[in-house]
């Protein structure tokens, strides 16, 4: 059995190995160098906090204004009050009204047939909206 050992590969293994190892060593040295360089060079983090600028002064307290307005409007939606006691027309709370519309079933989207203006037919304000 003269020739049963594997052939030696035709590649210069050593050169490849050295190149690879050299590359890794180079990276390692670069990393260490950069680490040292940065820690020497950068003494403090450069972070400029955002400077908020003043809002336009149109309302003195806009949050409170909105809360007050919405509270007024919600209040309107939560009351029972008479509009026309003789004809049995009233303002009712919105939850009640939502239930009543749901209860109309297939008719729910239809206009509400109710003549609110006592002396004139609906729509007789000449198309004016108010």
């Amino acid at each position, binding site marked *: 059995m003269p020739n049963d050992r594997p052939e030696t590969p035709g590649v210069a293994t050593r050169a490849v190995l050295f*190149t690879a190892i*050299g590359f890794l060593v*180079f990276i390692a040295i670069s990393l260490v160098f950069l680490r040292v360089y940065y820690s020497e060079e950068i003494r403090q983090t450069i972070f400029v906090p955002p400077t908020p600028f003043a809002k336009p002064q*149109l309302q003195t307290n806009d949050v409170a*204004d*909105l809360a007050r*307005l*919405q509270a007024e*409007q*919600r209040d*309107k*939606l939560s009351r*029972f*009050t*008479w*509009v026309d006691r003789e*004809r*049995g*027309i*009233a*303002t*009712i*709370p*919105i939850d*009640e*009204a*939502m*239930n*009543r*519309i*749901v209860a*109309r*079933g*297939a008719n*729910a*989207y*239809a*206009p*509400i047939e*109710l003549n*609110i*203006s006592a002396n004139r037919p*609906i*729509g*007789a*304000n000449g*198309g*004016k*909206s*108010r």
Partner: protein
Amino acid sequence: MRRVLLFAFALVVAGCDNQSMQQQNRYDTYAPSKLWPNGSEAQPLPAGVVAQGDLARARNAKEPPPVTNSLMRTGREDFDVFCSPCHGLAGDGDGMIVQRGFPAPPSYHTDRLRIAPASHFFDVITNGYGVMYSYAARVPPHDRWAIVAYIRALQESRYAQIAGVPRAREKMP
């Protein structure tokens, strides 16, 4: 030694490329292009093309969903979010945007809008109306119907016929 120098040189050269990702092999918006017959990077949509879901949206727009409690709640939520800044939570057209100078919308409690068909409200949300802009991009058709149903509830709430309703009078002041 020569090999080591060559190797070091190659490494140094590799560092010269600008790898900042600023310069990429792509077209800028509306850049000229020889690739297409019209010479532009931006291509118009082919005729007859529709967006995904367009057909379903068109179908939903045509068929109002049945008004249930949950649809009503959706409507209330959406109205408060999208419409109340101008129209007010109660639909009087007195929202905060209006208090601050935007043209006032009409109240929903006028005769004209009380007798307006539901499709009118739907169309106003879809297409806008006068100075009010369209909400089509923000409110999908199903939710538009929910808002319409809630507007009816607002109208009912303001002027309700409670003569024939048992127990209603007990609650009145």
